[in-house]
């Protein structure tokens, strides 16, 4: 089966998952106590007012009809109106999504860039001091609440040392004029970097640790493989073995894990955004939940599901790209 076909199949497989995500959130929201109408109007709206609102938001129809309509609208990229923000949900998401994606991307980049070398060195120097250190770091990393790391970073770097900002993110592509004290793109990038540093460390540490652990064990496993020994037996240098013969194979479990980590990373983003007062999707959904902003919660969750599904597809595809066995087996 060709890659294209495989890709299409993976995408099609994602559709029921997204439907499921929408359904779960929609019906959970439906189960929420409290009437959105009374939230909008206060405790004693006039009957006519309430009816008008119900009609306006379609709340007078049966739930499954509303759900179907919701799905149809969703396909047309209409996720409804946010009651809290009084703007279309899609607009709010469009505003916030880039921030969260930036945070996720930077955390994953940080995690991968540290975890891969660390894991490889650890595996290569197995049971040597370097290995012990990196294993302890990884163990602590997977055991520490990310938001606590964030709090500690803020205490140290923002409060005590006062060297890095404790809030907000600046998008690297933000217009120069909109960033305080920035006169050029370079200034904006510098500001963006400074703002990104602590949240990245806070969110990325867990990923980094988890990836280091998997990288180490998969590298160990690969280094024990016959084909690595074979390479060694044919005079391939240790460096080339690491770089070429072992590296690609060792990344396979890592790639799988990356996709799966996305869901915990998004959860972590909710916390990180809260700790660092970053206006991303995470805080958006919390605000939405607290205000029983039905459409916004469902829309945000759906987008999270979408990001996750896209992430998994991307990792699956890169897996297939790295490991030629995958597409082949799928074809059988």
């Amino acid at each position: 089966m060709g890659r294209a076909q495989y890709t299409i199949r993976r995408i099609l497989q994602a559709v029921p998952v997204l439907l499921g995500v929408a359904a779960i959130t929609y019906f959970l929201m439906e189960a929420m106590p409290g009437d959105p109408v009374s939230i909008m109007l206060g405790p004693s709206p006039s009957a006519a007012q309430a009816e008008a609102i119900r009609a306006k938001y379609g709340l007078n129809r049966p739930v499954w009809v509303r759900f179907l309509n919701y799905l149809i609208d969703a396909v047309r990229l209409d996720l409804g109106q946010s009651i809290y923000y009084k703007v279309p949900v899609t607009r709010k998401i469009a505003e916030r999504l880039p921030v969260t994606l930036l945070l996720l991307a930077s955390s994953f980049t940080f995690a991968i860039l540290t975890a891969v070398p660390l894991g490889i060195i650890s595996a290569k120097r197995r049971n040597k001091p370097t290995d012990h250190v990196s294993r302890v770091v990884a163990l602590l990393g997977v055991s520490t609440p990310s938001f606590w790391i964030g709090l500690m970073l803020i205490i140290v770097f923002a409060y005590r040392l006062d060297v890095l900002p404790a809030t907000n993110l600046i998008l690297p592509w933000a217009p120069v004029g909109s960033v305080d004290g920035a006169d050029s793109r370079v200034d904006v990038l510098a500001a963006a970097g400074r703002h990104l540093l602590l949240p990245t460390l806070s969110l990325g540490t867990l990923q980094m640790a988890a990836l280091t652990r998997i990288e180490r064990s998969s590298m160990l496993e690969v280094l024990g493989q016959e084909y690595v020994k074979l390479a060694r037996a044919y005079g391939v240098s240790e460096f080339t073995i690491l770089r070429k013969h072992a590296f690609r194979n060792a990344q396979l479990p890592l790639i799988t894990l990356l996709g799966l980590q996305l869901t915990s990373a998004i959860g972590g983003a909710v916390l990180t955004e809260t700790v660092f007062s970053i206006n991303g999707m995470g805080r958006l959904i919390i605000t939405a939940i607290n205000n029983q902003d039905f459409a916004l919660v469902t829309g945000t969750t759906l987008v999270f599901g979408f990001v996750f599904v896209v992430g998994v597809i991307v990792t699956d595809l890169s897996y297939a790209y790295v490991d030629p066995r995958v597409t082949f087996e799928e074809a059988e």
Partner: protein
Amino acid sequence: MSQSEPLLRVENLKTQFFTEEGTVRAVDGVSFEVGEGELVGLVGESGAGKSVAAQSIMRLVEEPGRIVDGTVTYKGRTLVDIERGPDGDLRESEAMLSRREMRTDIRGTEIAIIFQDPMESLNPVFTVGGQVREFIELNRDVSGAEAEEIAIDMLREVGIPEPVKRYDEYPHQFSGGMRQRVLIAMALACEPSLIIADEPTTALDVTVEGQILDLVDDLQEKYDTAFVWVTHDMGVVAEICDSVNVMYLGEVIEQADVDDLFHDTKHPYTRALLRSIPRPDRTVESLDPIGGVMPEAINPPSGCRFHTRCPDAREVCREVHPTHAPPEEGADAAGAGNDGARPADAARAAEADGRQPHLVSCVKYESVGYEHSESLEAEATGAFAGGLAEMRGGERDE
């Protein structure tokens, strides 16, 4: 000893594994030689240490294993030479090749290896051709394009149909037998003088095994490459080897030319191994597996290591560690191989021919009082569990 310097000489090789449970003496003083173009078998049960011995030659033993003693010379170069330092600590002698030299001068270039499991030995994420080519490029002074050409030729040579097309395919698109052919091609393509084949056919089914053995036989003749053939299968040994070293628990207990070994079997263990080969002239019932399980190499039995399982074991076997030597005249009272020739003479004769002298480690052939010693009740006599039959079933037939 042969007059001309052999291609490979292994002397008193000891390789140990330092585990939490204790020191495993995987290879415990093994010596043998391989002449130019000779096909030498290294045979024994699982855990006998034959693979470790083979890999020790190329210094491929990994942590926690270490070569602790012995010398390996190849074409006059010292691959391994462990000596005792002034404080009694073990150290690599200066004559020994550096790791770098091992890598650039020996591995692949001079000595190639074929591993047991063709399914695991090829890297699944690279094309077959690419892998063959890489090793050729690395070990022969040729350009990439030439290497590719050589690779394709060699794939054809080992009987892979449509080699040009298959060159770009991945290992998972090859069957086990085909992959083993690739590995053989890989080894031959580097044009080494010695190939160590570490149970190369164990993982294959019998028909494929047969084809591969034939192939190796042909190619060996054609390229005149020497082989060290590691196997647990006496049948394979009989088919292709020139001389044989039988290993048990880290030691070589009998070594001889293949004919001598089969027809003038000295050691009870070798005899037991031979009895356990299925042969068309015998019924399955008459197969006689070796009783018991090989003991751990951490705490090898005292005296003769085989005494715990030996049908001929006597009290003395538990006490005296046999020397590895030509069987002594007259000492062989209960031995089976009484064909009239005097073993020691035969050994000398063999040596004179440049053939492998027949050496054996068994007290039966020494004057240590075997005849008068009490018979031991070997633990596993008659037991059907464990042993070679099961091993064969497990390793070969599924």
